[in-house]
Protein backbone atom coordinates (compact mmCIF):
# COMPACT_ATOMS: atom_id res chain seq x y z
CA UNK A 1 0.00 0.00 0.00
CA UNK A 2 1.16 3.49 -0.64
CA UNK A 3 2.87 5.25 2.20
CA UNK A 4 2.45 8.67 0.68
CA UNK A 5 0.23 10.55 3.02
CA UNK A 6 2.02 13.76 2.16
CA UNK A 7 0.61 15.87 -0.62
CA UNK A 8 1.06 14.15 -3.95
CA UNK A 9 4.11 15.13 -5.98
CA UNK A 10 3.39 17.20 -8.99
CA UNK A 11 4.00 15.85 -12.47
CA UNK A 12 5.89 18.54 -14.34
CA UNK A 13 5.79 16.67 -17.68
CA UNK A 14 9.47 17.33 -17.97
CA UNK A 15 10.67 13.76 -18.05
CA UNK A 16 14.13 14.32 -16.68
CA UNK A 17 12.95 16.52 -13.81
CA UNK A 18 10.20 14.05 -12.89
CA UNK A 19 12.57 11.12 -12.78
CA UNK A 20 15.15 13.04 -10.75
CA UNK A 21 12.45 14.16 -8.36
CA UNK A 22 11.25 10.60 -7.95
CA UNK A 23 14.72 9.29 -7.21
CA UNK A 24 15.23 11.80 -4.47
CA UNK A 25 13.25 9.49 -2.26
CA UNK A 26 15.27 6.49 -1.19
CA UNK A 27 12.20 4.29 -0.99
CA UNK A 28 11.69 4.95 -4.70
CA UNK A 29 15.31 4.11 -5.45
CA UNK A 30 14.95 0.87 -3.52
CA UNK A 31 11.68 0.10 -5.25
CA UNK A 32 13.20 0.61 -8.69
CA UNK A 33 16.22 -1.46 -7.84
CA UNK A 34 14.24 -4.37 -6.48
CA UNK A 35 11.58 -4.04 -9.15
CA UNK A 36 14.06 -4.12 -12.00
CA UNK A 37 15.86 -7.15 -10.63
CA UNK A 38 12.57 -8.97 -10.15
CA UNK A 39 11.40 -8.03 -13.62
CA UNK A 40 14.48 -9.55 -15.22
CA UNK A 41 13.87 -12.83 -13.44
CA UNK A 42 10.12 -12.75 -13.97
CA UNK A 43 10.58 -12.28 -17.69
CA UNK A 44 13.01 -15.19 -17.97
CA UNK A 45 11.14 -17.59 -15.74
CA UNK A 46 7.76 -16.50 -17.09
CA UNK A 47 8.69 -17.42 -20.65
CA UNK A 48 9.37 -20.97 -19.62
CA UNK A 49 6.21 -21.06 -17.54
CA UNK A 50 4.28 -20.40 -20.72
CA UNK A 51 6.25 -22.79 -22.90
CA UNK A 52 5.85 -25.54 -20.30
CA UNK A 53 2.14 -24.79 -19.91
CA UNK A 54 2.55 -24.33 -16.18
CA UNK A 55 0.54 -21.16 -15.77
CA UNK A 56 -1.76 -22.77 -13.23
CA UNK A 57 1.22 -24.08 -11.25
CA UNK A 58 2.69 -20.59 -11.21
CA UNK A 59 -0.53 -19.12 -9.91
CA UNK A 60 -0.90 -21.88 -7.35
CA UNK A 61 2.62 -21.24 -6.06
CA UNK A 62 1.83 -17.62 -5.41
CA UNK A 63 -1.12 -18.73 -3.29
CA UNK A 64 1.16 -21.19 -1.51
CA UNK A 65 3.52 -18.28 -0.84
CA UNK A 66 0.71 -16.46 0.90
CA UNK A 67 0.02 -19.44 3.15
CA UNK A 68 3.72 -19.87 3.86
CA UNK A 69 4.13 -16.26 4.87
CA UNK A 70 1.09 -16.37 7.12
CA UNK A 71 2.20 -19.67 8.60
CA UNK A 72 5.64 -18.32 9.32
CA UNK A 73 4.18 -15.30 11.05
CA UNK A 74 1.84 -17.42 13.15
CA UNK A 75 4.49 -19.94 14.11
CA UNK A 76 6.80 -17.13 15.12
CA UNK A 77 9.44 -17.71 12.49
CA UNK A 78 10.51 -15.27 9.83
CA UNK A 79 7.61 -15.00 7.35
CA UNK A 80 10.01 -14.86 4.42
CA UNK A 81 11.60 -18.12 5.52
CA UNK A 82 8.21 -19.75 5.95
CA UNK A 83 7.21 -18.57 2.53
CA UNK A 84 10.33 -19.83 0.80
CA UNK A 85 10.22 -23.23 2.50
CA UNK A 86 6.56 -23.89 1.79
CA UNK A 87 6.78 -22.60 -1.77
CA UNK A 88 9.74 -24.81 -2.59
CA UNK A 89 8.01 -27.79 -1.01
CA UNK A 90 4.91 -27.04 -3.05
CA UNK A 91 6.98 -26.65 -6.19
CA UNK A 92 8.69 -30.00 -5.72
CA UNK A 93 5.35 -31.66 -5.11
CA UNK A 94 3.86 -30.13 -8.23
CA UNK A 95 6.92 -30.96 -10.27
CA UNK A 96 6.53 -34.62 -9.53
CA UNK A 97 2.91 -34.89 -10.59
CA UNK A 98 1.72 -36.71 -13.68
CA UNK A 99 2.89 -35.32 -16.97
CA UNK A 100 -0.36 -34.98 -18.83
CA UNK A 101 -1.53 -31.40 -18.51
CA UNK A 102 -5.12 -32.14 -17.47
CA UNK A 103 -4.11 -34.61 -14.76
CA UNK A 104 -1.41 -32.27 -13.58
CA UNK A 105 -3.77 -29.31 -13.36
CA UNK A 106 -6.25 -31.35 -11.37
CA UNK A 107 -3.59 -32.40 -8.90
CA UNK A 108 -2.40 -28.82 -8.62
CA UNK A 109 -5.97 -27.73 -8.04
CA UNK A 110 -6.59 -30.12 -5.18
CA UNK A 111 -3.38 -29.22 -3.39
CA UNK A 112 -4.01 -25.54 -4.00
CA UNK A 113 -7.49 -25.81 -2.57
CA UNK A 114 -6.20 -27.16 0.69
CA UNK A 115 -3.25 -24.78 0.88
CA UNK A 116 -5.72 -21.89 0.61
CA UNK A 117 -7.68 -23.40 3.48
CA UNK A 118 -4.49 -23.45 5.52
CA UNK A 119 -3.90 -19.87 4.53
CA UNK A 120 -7.28 -18.93 5.92
CA UNK A 121 -6.45 -20.68 9.16
CA UNK A 122 -3.15 -18.90 9.54
CA UNK A 123 -4.69 -15.58 8.63
CA UNK A 124 -7.38 -16.01 11.25
CA UNK A 125 -4.88 -17.02 13.90
CA UNK A 126 -2.62 -14.19 12.86
CA UNK A 127 -5.22 -11.47 13.11
CA UNK A 128 -6.51 -12.90 16.37
CA UNK A 129 -3.27 -13.44 18.20
CA UNK A 130 -0.41 -11.66 16.48
CA UNK A 131 -0.71 -7.94 16.17
CA UNK A 132 0.20 -6.27 12.89
CA UNK A 133 3.75 -5.39 13.74
CA UNK A 134 6.35 -3.95 11.39
CA UNK A 135 3.73 -3.33 8.72
CA UNK A 136 3.20 -7.01 8.10
CA UNK A 137 -0.34 -8.10 7.53
CA UNK A 138 -2.39 -10.32 5.32
CA UNK A 139 -2.94 -7.42 2.98
CA UNK A 140 0.73 -6.69 2.47
CA UNK A 141 1.41 -10.31 1.67
CA UNK A 142 -1.48 -10.49 -0.73
CA UNK A 143 -0.90 -7.22 -2.48
CA UNK A 144 2.70 -6.30 -1.90
CA UNK A 145 4.46 -3.29 -0.51
CA UNK A 146 7.19 -2.42 -2.91
CA UNK A 147 7.40 1.09 -1.57
CA UNK A 148 8.38 -0.08 1.88
CA UNK A 149 11.36 -2.14 0.86
CA UNK A 150 14.51 -1.18 2.72
CA UNK A 151 17.88 -0.79 1.07
CA UNK A 152 19.01 -4.02 2.68
CA UNK A 153 15.98 -5.92 1.41
CA UNK A 154 16.55 -4.49 -2.06
CA UNK A 155 20.13 -5.69 -2.02
CA UNK A 156 19.06 -9.20 -1.04
CA UNK A 157 16.44 -9.23 -3.77
CA UNK A 158 18.99 -8.15 -6.37
CA UNK A 159 21.42 -10.84 -5.25
CA UNK A 160 18.84 -13.63 -5.27
CA UNK A 161 17.39 -12.48 -8.57
CA UNK A 162 20.85 -12.43 -10.08
CA UNK A 163 21.43 -15.98 -8.91
CA UNK A 164 18.15 -17.24 -10.35
CA UNK A 165 18.73 -15.48 -13.68
CA UNK A 166 22.21 -16.95 -13.97
CA UNK A 167 21.00 -20.45 -13.13
CA UNK A 168 18.22 -20.20 -15.66
CA UNK A 169 20.48 -18.95 -18.42
CA UNK A 170 22.85 -21.80 -17.83
CA UNK A 171 20.11 -24.39 -18.36
CA UNK A 172 18.11 -22.42 -20.91
CA UNK A 173 18.83 -24.60 -23.91
CA UNK A 174 18.33 -28.03 -22.33
CA UNK A 175 15.28 -26.68 -20.52
CA UNK A 176 13.78 -25.45 -23.77
CA UNK A 177 14.50 -28.77 -25.43
CA UNK A 178 12.98 -30.69 -22.53
CA UNK A 179 9.93 -28.42 -22.48
CA UNK A 180 9.13 -28.48 -26.17
CA UNK A 181 10.30 -31.95 -27.15
CA UNK A 182 10.64 -34.15 -24.05
CA UNK A 183 10.88 -37.50 -25.84
CA UNK A 184 13.70 -36.56 -28.15
CA UNK A 185 15.45 -34.58 -25.44
CA UNK A 186 15.41 -37.63 -23.16
CA UNK A 187 16.79 -39.73 -25.98
CA UNK A 188 19.60 -37.21 -26.34
CA UNK A 189 20.50 -37.53 -22.70
CA UNK A 190 18.86 -34.37 -21.40
CA UNK A 191 17.68 -35.07 -17.81
CA UNK A 192 14.09 -34.07 -18.51
CA UNK A 193 12.48 -34.84 -15.15
CA UNK A 194 15.34 -33.41 -13.14
CA UNK A 195 15.28 -30.21 -15.17
CA UNK A 196 11.55 -30.03 -14.59
CA UNK A 197 12.01 -30.19 -10.84
CA UNK A 198 14.89 -27.72 -10.97
CA UNK A 199 12.74 -25.29 -12.91
CA UNK A 200 9.93 -25.60 -10.39
CA UNK A 201 12.36 -24.74 -7.62
CA UNK A 202 13.56 -21.69 -9.55
CA UNK A 203 9.94 -20.70 -10.04
CA UNK A 204 9.25 -21.14 -6.34
CA UNK A 205 12.16 -18.94 -5.29
CA UNK A 206 11.18 -16.32 -7.88
CA UNK A 207 7.63 -16.24 -6.57
CA UNK A 208 8.76 -16.05 -2.96
CA UNK A 209 11.08 -13.14 -3.75
CA UNK A 210 8.60 -11.26 -5.88
CA UNK A 211 5.84 -11.56 -3.30
CA UNK A 212 7.61 -8.96 -1.22
CA UNK A 213 7.33 -6.46 -4.03
CA UNK A 214 4.07 -7.03 -5.79
CA UNK A 215 2.36 -9.42 -3.41
CA UNK A 216 1.18 -12.99 -3.69
CA UNK A 217 -1.84 -12.28 -5.82
CA UNK A 218 -0.04 -10.20 -8.40
CA UNK A 219 3.36 -11.82 -8.81
CA UNK A 220 1.71 -14.13 -11.24
CA UNK A 221 0.84 -11.20 -13.50
CA UNK A 222 4.48 -10.14 -13.74
CA UNK A 223 5.47 -13.70 -14.52
CA UNK A 224 2.79 -14.37 -17.10
CA UNK A 225 1.89 -11.24 -19.00
CA UNK A 226 5.21 -9.88 -20.33
CA UNK A 227 6.21 -13.38 -21.43
CA UNK A 228 2.79 -13.94 -23.01
CA UNK A 229 3.22 -10.78 -25.07
CA UNK A 230 6.78 -11.74 -25.97
CA UNK A 231 5.84 -15.10 -27.35
CA UNK A 232 3.09 -13.50 -29.44
CA UNK A 233 5.59 -11.04 -30.87
CA UNK A 234 8.32 -13.45 -31.85
CA UNK A 235 8.78 -17.15 -32.46
CA UNK A 236 12.52 -17.21 -31.86
CA UNK A 237 12.85 -18.63 -28.37
CA UNK A 238 15.93 -16.74 -27.18
CA UNK A 239 14.70 -13.49 -28.65
CA UNK A 240 11.42 -14.05 -26.82
CA UNK A 241 13.34 -14.37 -23.57
CA UNK A 242 14.89 -10.98 -24.13
CA UNK A 243 11.63 -9.36 -25.14
CA UNK A 244 9.91 -10.77 -22.04
CA UNK A 245 12.57 -9.22 -19.82
CA UNK A 246 12.33 -5.87 -21.56
CA UNK A 247 8.55 -5.83 -21.31
CA UNK A 248 8.61 -6.80 -17.65
CA UNK A 249 11.08 -4.04 -16.84
CA UNK A 250 9.03 -1.54 -18.82
CA UNK A 251 5.83 -2.44 -17.00
CA UNK A 252 7.57 -2.13 -13.67
CA UNK A 253 9.23 1.21 -14.38
CA UNK A 254 6.11 2.81 -15.77
CA UNK A 255 3.97 1.23 -13.09
CA UNK A 256 6.16 2.56 -10.32
CA UNK A 257 6.25 6.02 -11.87
CA UNK A 258 2.50 6.17 -12.32
CA UNK A 259 2.08 4.89 -8.79
CA UNK A 260 4.36 7.57 -7.46
CA UNK A 261 2.59 10.44 -9.16
CA UNK A 262 -0.97 9.21 -8.77
CA UNK A 263 -0.86 7.67 -5.34
CA UNK A 264 -2.34 4.44 -6.61
CA UNK A 265 -0.84 1.17 -5.37
CA UNK A 266 2.21 0.30 -7.45
CA UNK A 267 1.45 -3.37 -7.85
CA UNK A 268 -1.91 -2.46 -9.36
CA UNK A 269 -0.33 -0.06 -11.83
CA UNK A 270 2.27 -2.57 -12.93
CA UNK A 271 -0.28 -5.33 -13.39
CA UNK A 272 -2.83 -3.26 -15.25
CA UNK A 273 -0.14 -1.87 -17.55
CA UNK A 274 1.01 -5.37 -18.40
CA UNK A 275 -2.58 -6.49 -18.94
CA UNK A 276 -3.33 -3.57 -21.24
CA UNK A 277 -0.21 -4.43 -23.20
CA UNK A 278 -1.31 -8.04 -23.53
CA UNK A 279 -4.82 -7.18 -24.69
CA UNK A 280 -3.42 -4.58 -27.04
CA UNK A 281 -1.04 -7.00 -28.72
CA UNK A 282 -3.63 -9.76 -29.05
CA UNK A 283 -6.22 -7.30 -30.25
CA UNK A 284 -4.01 -5.63 -32.83
CA UNK A 285 -2.89 -8.98 -34.19
CA UNK A 286 -6.47 -10.13 -34.45
CA UNK A 287 -7.43 -6.94 -36.26
CA UNK A 288 -4.48 -7.29 -38.62
CA UNK A 289 -5.52 -10.81 -39.38
CA UNK A 290 -9.10 -9.75 -40.01
CA UNK A 291 -7.95 -7.05 -42.37
CA UNK A 292 -5.68 -9.46 -44.17
CA UNK A 293 -8.54 -11.94 -44.53
CA UNK A 294 -10.85 -9.27 -45.87
CA UNK A 295 -8.17 -7.97 -48.19
CA UNK A 296 -7.38 -11.39 -49.59
CA UNK A 297 -11.06 -12.04 -50.08
CA UNK A 298 -11.35 -8.89 -52.16
CA UNK A 299 -8.18 -9.63 -54.08
CA UNK A 300 -8.07 -13.38 -54.55
CA UNK A 301 -5.29 -13.30 -57.08
CA UNK A 302 -2.85 -11.14 -55.20
CA UNK A 303 0.18 -12.58 -53.45
CA UNK A 304 0.08 -12.17 -49.72
CA UNK A 305 3.31 -11.55 -47.83
CA UNK A 306 4.49 -14.56 -45.87
CA UNK A 307 3.47 -13.11 -42.54
CA UNK A 308 2.98 -16.43 -40.88
CA UNK A 309 -0.57 -15.43 -40.18
CA UNK A 310 -2.10 -17.59 -42.85
CA UNK A 311 -1.69 -21.22 -42.23
CA UNK A 312 -2.21 -24.13 -44.56
CA UNK A 313 -5.02 -26.41 -43.65
CA UNK A 314 -3.82 -28.99 -41.25
CA UNK A 315 -4.11 -32.60 -42.26
Amino acid at each position, binding site marked *: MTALDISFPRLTWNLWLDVVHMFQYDFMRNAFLAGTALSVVAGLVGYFVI*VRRQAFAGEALSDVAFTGAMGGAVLGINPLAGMIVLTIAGALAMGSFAQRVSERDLAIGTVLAWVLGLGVLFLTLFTAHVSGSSGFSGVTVLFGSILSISAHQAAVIVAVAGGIALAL*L*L*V*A*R*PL*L*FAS*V*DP*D*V*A*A*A*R*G*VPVRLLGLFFMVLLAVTVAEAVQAVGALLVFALLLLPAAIA*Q*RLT*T*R*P*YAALGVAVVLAITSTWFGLTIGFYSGLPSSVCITLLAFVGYVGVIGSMAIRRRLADVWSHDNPNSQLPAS*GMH*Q*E*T*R*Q
Partner: protein
Amino acid sequence: MKTLSSTLAQDSERNPTEPVVSIVGGAVRLGGQTIWQDVNLEVQPGEFIAVLGPNGSGKSTLMKVILGLLPLSAGAVTVFGQPARGGNQDIGYVPQRRSFEADVRIRGRDIVRLGLDGGRWGPPFPFLYPREAKAISQRVQRVIESVDAVAYADRPIGQISGGQQQRLLVAQALVTNPRMLILDEPLDSLDLANQQAIAWIIRRIAKETGAAVLLVAHDVNPIMSSIDRVVYIARGHVAVGVPTEVITSETLTKLYSSPVEVLRTCDGGLVVVGYTGECVSYHEHH
Protein backbone atom coordinates in the same frame (compact mmCIF):
# COMPACT_ATOMS: atom_id res chain seq x y z
CA MET B 1 30.85 -39.58 -27.47
CA LYS B 2 30.52 -36.95 -30.12
CA THR B 3 30.98 -33.37 -29.06
CA LEU B 4 29.24 -30.52 -30.75
CA SER B 5 32.47 -29.29 -32.32
CA SER B 6 33.37 -32.66 -33.75
CA THR B 7 29.90 -32.90 -35.20
CA LEU B 8 30.36 -29.61 -36.95
CA ALA B 9 33.76 -30.65 -38.24
CA GLN B 10 34.16 -33.25 -40.90
CA ASP B 11 32.03 -36.34 -40.66
CA SER B 12 33.39 -38.63 -38.00
CA GLU B 13 35.15 -41.85 -38.78
CA ARG B 14 32.86 -44.70 -39.53
CA ASN B 15 33.99 -48.26 -39.15
CA PRO B 16 32.43 -49.96 -42.14
CA THR B 17 32.62 -53.50 -40.86
CA GLU B 18 31.38 -53.31 -37.27
CA PRO B 19 27.66 -53.96 -36.86
CA VAL B 20 25.74 -50.88 -35.82
CA VAL B 21 23.42 -52.80 -33.52
CA SER B 22 23.81 -56.26 -32.07
CA ILE B 23 21.21 -57.95 -29.90
CA VAL B 24 21.88 -61.45 -28.62
CA GLY B 25 19.20 -63.42 -26.79
CA GLY B 26 17.34 -60.26 -25.94
CA ALA B 27 14.15 -60.30 -23.88
CA VAL B 28 12.04 -57.63 -22.20
CA ARG B 29 9.61 -58.26 -19.38
CA LEU B 30 7.42 -55.41 -18.15
CA GLY B 31 4.82 -55.58 -15.42
CA GLY B 32 4.90 -59.36 -15.28
CA GLN B 33 4.42 -59.73 -19.02
CA THR B 34 7.00 -60.87 -21.50
CA ILE B 35 6.95 -58.41 -24.38
CA TRP B 36 9.36 -60.39 -26.52
CA GLN B 37 12.17 -62.90 -26.06
CA ASP B 38 14.88 -64.84 -27.94
CA VAL B 39 15.61 -61.85 -30.10
CA ASN B 40 18.77 -62.02 -32.17
CA LEU B 41 19.43 -59.12 -34.47
CA GLU B 42 22.40 -57.57 -36.18
CA VAL B 43 22.12 -54.33 -38.10
CA GLN B 44 24.90 -53.56 -40.56
CA PRO B 45 25.99 -50.00 -41.40
CA GLY B 46 23.90 -48.48 -44.16
CA GLU B 47 21.09 -51.03 -43.85
CA PHE B 48 17.48 -49.91 -44.13
CA ILE B 49 15.34 -52.11 -41.94
CA ALA B 50 11.58 -52.02 -41.54
CA VAL B 51 10.19 -53.06 -38.16
CA LEU B 52 6.73 -54.50 -38.56
CA GLY B 53 4.10 -56.19 -36.47
CA PRO B 54 0.63 -55.76 -35.02
CA ASN B 55 -0.26 -53.15 -32.43
CA GLY B 56 1.20 -53.74 -29.00
CA SER B 57 3.75 -56.27 -30.21
CA GLY B 58 6.65 -54.34 -28.78
CA LYS B 59 8.08 -52.49 -31.78
CA SER B 60 8.52 -49.24 -29.84
CA THR B 61 9.95 -51.26 -26.97
CA LEU B 62 12.64 -52.62 -29.24
CA MET B 63 13.50 -49.11 -30.38
CA LYS B 64 13.73 -47.91 -26.79
CA VAL B 65 16.07 -50.74 -25.92
CA ILE B 66 18.40 -49.78 -28.77
CA LEU B 67 18.20 -46.14 -27.69
CA GLY B 68 19.28 -47.18 -24.22
CA LEU B 69 16.08 -45.88 -22.67
CA LEU B 70 14.94 -49.30 -21.52
CA PRO B 71 17.11 -52.12 -20.19
CA LEU B 72 16.88 -55.72 -21.38
CA SER B 73 15.55 -58.28 -18.95
CA ALA B 74 17.77 -60.91 -20.56
CA GLY B 75 20.49 -60.96 -23.19
CA ALA B 76 22.81 -58.19 -24.33
CA VAL B 77 22.54 -55.26 -26.71
CA THR B 78 25.47 -53.33 -28.11
CA VAL B 79 25.26 -50.18 -30.19
CA PHE B 80 28.32 -49.10 -32.20
CA GLY B 81 30.26 -51.71 -30.30
CA GLN B 82 29.36 -50.32 -26.88
CA PRO B 83 26.54 -51.32 -24.53
CA ALA B 84 23.41 -49.37 -25.34
CA ARG B 85 23.05 -46.20 -23.32
CA GLY B 86 20.80 -43.19 -23.31
CA GLY B 87 21.88 -39.88 -24.74
CA ASN B 88 23.76 -41.32 -27.67
CA GLN B 89 24.46 -38.43 -30.02
CA ASP B 90 25.14 -40.82 -32.87
CA ILE B 91 21.49 -41.90 -33.08
CA GLY B 92 18.88 -39.69 -34.63
CA TYR B 93 15.46 -40.40 -33.12
CA VAL B 94 11.99 -39.51 -34.35
CA PRO B 95 9.54 -40.76 -31.70
CA GLN B 96 6.04 -41.98 -32.33
CA ARG B 97 3.02 -39.82 -33.14
CA ARG B 98 4.48 -36.54 -32.13
CA SER B 99 2.73 -33.48 -33.30
CA PHE B 100 2.94 -30.06 -31.87
CA GLU B 101 -0.19 -28.34 -30.68
CA ALA B 102 -1.45 -25.42 -32.70
CA ASP B 103 -0.39 -22.92 -30.10
CA VAL B 104 3.30 -23.79 -29.93
CA ARG B 105 4.93 -20.56 -31.01
CA ILE B 106 8.47 -21.64 -31.76
CA ARG B 107 9.93 -21.77 -35.27
CA GLY B 108 10.43 -25.10 -36.96
CA ARG B 109 14.01 -24.03 -37.59
CA ASP B 110 14.60 -23.66 -33.84
CA ILE B 111 13.14 -27.11 -33.21
CA VAL B 112 15.61 -28.52 -35.71
CA ARG B 113 18.42 -26.58 -34.10
CA LEU B 114 17.57 -28.03 -30.70
CA GLY B 115 18.47 -31.39 -32.17
CA LEU B 116 21.99 -30.08 -32.48
CA ASP B 117 22.62 -27.96 -29.41
CA GLY B 118 19.60 -28.61 -27.21
CA GLY B 119 21.64 -30.64 -24.77
CA ARG B 120 24.28 -27.99 -24.26
CA TRP B 121 24.40 -26.15 -20.97
CA GLY B 122 25.47 -22.52 -20.83
CA PRO B 123 24.02 -19.16 -21.81
CA PRO B 124 22.33 -19.29 -25.21
CA PHE B 125 23.79 -16.05 -26.54
CA PRO B 126 25.29 -16.45 -30.03
CA PHE B 127 27.63 -13.52 -29.57
CA LEU B 128 29.54 -15.50 -26.99
CA TYR B 129 30.64 -18.02 -29.58
CA PRO B 130 30.17 -16.40 -33.01
CA ARG B 131 32.04 -18.84 -35.21
CA GLU B 132 30.33 -21.87 -33.76
CA ALA B 133 26.97 -20.19 -33.95
CA LYS B 134 27.51 -19.53 -37.64
CA ALA B 135 28.52 -23.13 -38.26
CA ILE B 136 25.40 -24.31 -36.41
CA SER B 137 23.15 -22.04 -38.46
CA GLN B 138 24.68 -23.25 -41.68
CA ARG B 139 24.30 -26.89 -40.78
CA VAL B 140 20.68 -26.36 -39.72
CA GLN B 141 19.98 -24.63 -43.04
CA ARG B 142 21.62 -27.45 -44.99
CA VAL B 143 19.62 -30.15 -43.31
CA ILE B 144 16.39 -28.22 -43.74
CA GLU B 145 17.21 -27.91 -47.42
CA SER B 146 17.87 -31.62 -47.67
CA VAL B 147 14.32 -32.39 -46.53
CA ASP B 148 12.82 -29.66 -48.74
CA ALA B 149 11.33 -27.78 -45.83
CA VAL B 150 12.82 -24.33 -46.41
CA ALA B 151 9.51 -22.75 -47.35
CA TYR B 152 7.98 -23.18 -43.92
CA ALA B 153 10.90 -23.63 -41.57
CA ASP B 154 10.48 -20.15 -40.16
CA ARG B 155 6.81 -20.49 -39.35
CA PRO B 156 5.63 -21.45 -35.85
CA ILE B 157 5.74 -25.22 -35.83
CA GLY B 158 2.24 -25.46 -34.43
CA GLN B 159 0.84 -23.77 -37.50
CA ILE B 160 2.08 -26.05 -40.25
CA SER B 161 0.54 -29.27 -41.47
CA GLY B 162 1.34 -32.76 -40.16
CA GLY B 163 3.41 -33.72 -43.18
CA GLN B 164 5.44 -30.53 -42.96
CA GLN B 165 6.04 -31.01 -39.24
CA GLN B 166 7.21 -34.55 -39.88
CA ARG B 167 9.80 -33.39 -42.40
CA LEU B 168 11.21 -30.91 -39.91
CA LEU B 169 11.30 -33.60 -37.24
CA VAL B 170 13.25 -35.87 -39.57
CA ALA B 171 15.57 -32.94 -40.18
CA GLN B 172 15.99 -32.61 -36.43
CA ALA B 173 17.05 -36.24 -36.23
CA LEU B 174 19.47 -35.79 -39.13
CA VAL B 175 21.13 -32.60 -38.00
CA THR B 176 23.76 -34.37 -35.89
CA ASN B 177 24.80 -36.45 -38.87
CA PRO B 178 23.93 -39.64 -37.03
CA ARG B 179 25.27 -43.08 -37.76
CA MET B 180 21.82 -44.55 -37.15
CA LEU B 181 18.31 -43.24 -37.61
CA ILE B 182 15.44 -44.64 -35.58
CA LEU B 183 11.98 -43.57 -36.69
CA ASP B 184 8.93 -44.83 -34.81
CA GLU B 185 5.92 -44.85 -37.13
CA PRO B 186 6.88 -41.60 -38.84
CA LEU B 187 4.52 -42.14 -41.74
CA ASP B 188 1.35 -42.69 -39.72
CA SER B 189 -1.46 -40.24 -40.42
CA LEU B 190 0.24 -38.90 -43.54
CA ASP B 191 -1.25 -39.12 -46.99
CA LEU B 192 0.33 -41.40 -49.53
CA ALA B 193 2.20 -38.64 -51.36
CA ASN B 194 3.81 -37.42 -48.16
CA GLN B 195 4.61 -40.95 -47.04
CA GLN B 196 6.45 -41.69 -50.22
CA ALA B 197 8.22 -38.35 -50.26
CA ILE B 198 9.53 -38.68 -46.74
CA ALA B 199 10.51 -42.31 -47.20
CA TRP B 200 12.44 -41.35 -50.31
CA ILE B 201 14.18 -38.49 -48.51
CA ILE B 202 15.22 -40.80 -45.68
CA ARG B 203 16.50 -43.37 -48.12
CA ARG B 204 18.50 -40.80 -50.09
CA ILE B 205 20.12 -39.23 -47.05
CA ALA B 206 20.89 -42.60 -45.50
CA LYS B 207 22.61 -43.65 -48.69
CA GLU B 208 24.61 -40.43 -48.81
CA THR B 209 25.78 -40.59 -45.21
CA GLY B 210 25.98 -44.35 -44.80
CA ALA B 211 23.64 -44.25 -41.80
CA ALA B 212 21.64 -47.32 -40.83
CA VAL B 213 17.88 -46.83 -40.66
CA LEU B 214 15.36 -48.59 -38.43
CA LEU B 215 11.86 -47.59 -39.38
CA VAL B 216 8.80 -48.82 -37.52
CA ALA B 217 5.80 -48.98 -39.79
CA HIS B 218 2.28 -50.25 -39.94
CA ASP B 219 2.16 -50.40 -43.66
CA VAL B 220 5.33 -51.17 -45.54
CA ASN B 221 3.69 -49.91 -48.75
CA PRO B 222 5.78 -46.83 -49.44
CA ILE B 223 9.12 -48.23 -48.32
CA MET B 224 9.03 -51.72 -49.76
CA SER B 225 11.38 -50.76 -52.56
CA SER B 226 13.78 -49.05 -50.17
CA ILE B 227 14.24 -51.63 -47.44
CA ASP B 228 16.93 -54.22 -47.19
CA ARG B 229 15.48 -56.39 -44.45
CA VAL B 230 12.43 -56.80 -42.27
CA VAL B 231 12.12 -57.38 -38.53
CA TYR B 232 8.67 -58.79 -37.85
CA ILE B 233 7.56 -58.88 -34.22
CA ALA B 234 4.47 -60.79 -33.18
CA ARG B 235 3.33 -62.63 -30.05
CA GLY B 236 6.61 -62.26 -28.25
CA HIS B 237 8.83 -63.57 -31.04
CA VAL B 238 10.76 -62.03 -33.86
CA ALA B 239 11.51 -63.05 -37.43
CA VAL B 240 14.39 -61.30 -39.20
CA GLY B 241 15.22 -61.49 -42.87
CA VAL B 242 14.53 -60.18 -46.35
CA PRO B 243 10.87 -59.45 -47.13
CA THR B 244 10.45 -62.42 -49.42
CA GLU B 245 11.58 -64.68 -46.58
CA VAL B 246 9.69 -63.09 -43.72
CA ILE B 247 6.39 -62.05 -45.21
CA THR B 248 5.34 -65.55 -46.15
CA SER B 249 2.54 -67.75 -44.92
CA GLU B 250 4.99 -70.22 -43.42
CA THR B 251 7.09 -67.72 -41.47
CA LEU B 252 4.19 -65.73 -40.16
CA THR B 253 2.23 -68.84 -39.19
CA LYS B 254 5.17 -69.94 -37.09
CA LEU B 255 5.46 -66.48 -35.61
CA TYR B 256 1.80 -66.12 -34.70
CA SER B 257 1.52 -69.80 -33.74
CA SER B 258 -1.72 -69.93 -35.67
CA PRO B 259 -2.79 -70.04 -39.30
CA VAL B 260 -1.70 -66.96 -41.23
CA GLU B 261 -1.90 -66.67 -44.96
CA VAL B 262 -0.03 -64.29 -47.21
CA LEU B 263 -1.82 -63.69 -50.45
CA ARG B 264 -0.52 -62.10 -53.59
CA THR B 265 -2.73 -59.69 -55.46
CA CYS B 266 -2.60 -59.50 -59.22
CA ASP B 267 -0.56 -56.28 -59.21
CA GLY B 268 2.13 -57.74 -57.01
CA GLY B 269 0.79 -56.68 -53.64
CA LEU B 270 0.95 -58.76 -50.50
CA VAL B 271 -2.03 -59.20 -48.18
CA VAL B 272 -1.64 -60.82 -44.77
CA VAL B 273 -4.70 -62.50 -43.29
CA GLY B 274 -4.74 -64.20 -39.91
CA TYR B 275 -7.16 -65.70 -37.43
CA THR B 276 -7.33 -62.43 -35.53
CA GLY B 277 -8.95 -60.95 -38.58
CA GLU B 278 -6.04 -58.61 -38.89
CA CYS B 279 -5.52 -57.69 -42.50
CA VAL B 280 -2.41 -55.83 -43.47
CA SER B 281 -1.69 -55.24 -47.11
CA TYR B 282 1.72 -54.79 -48.61
CA HIS B 283 2.32 -53.74 -52.17
CA GLU B 284 5.45 -54.11 -54.16
CA HIS B 285 6.28 -51.28 -56.47
CA HIS B 286 8.08 -52.12 -59.63
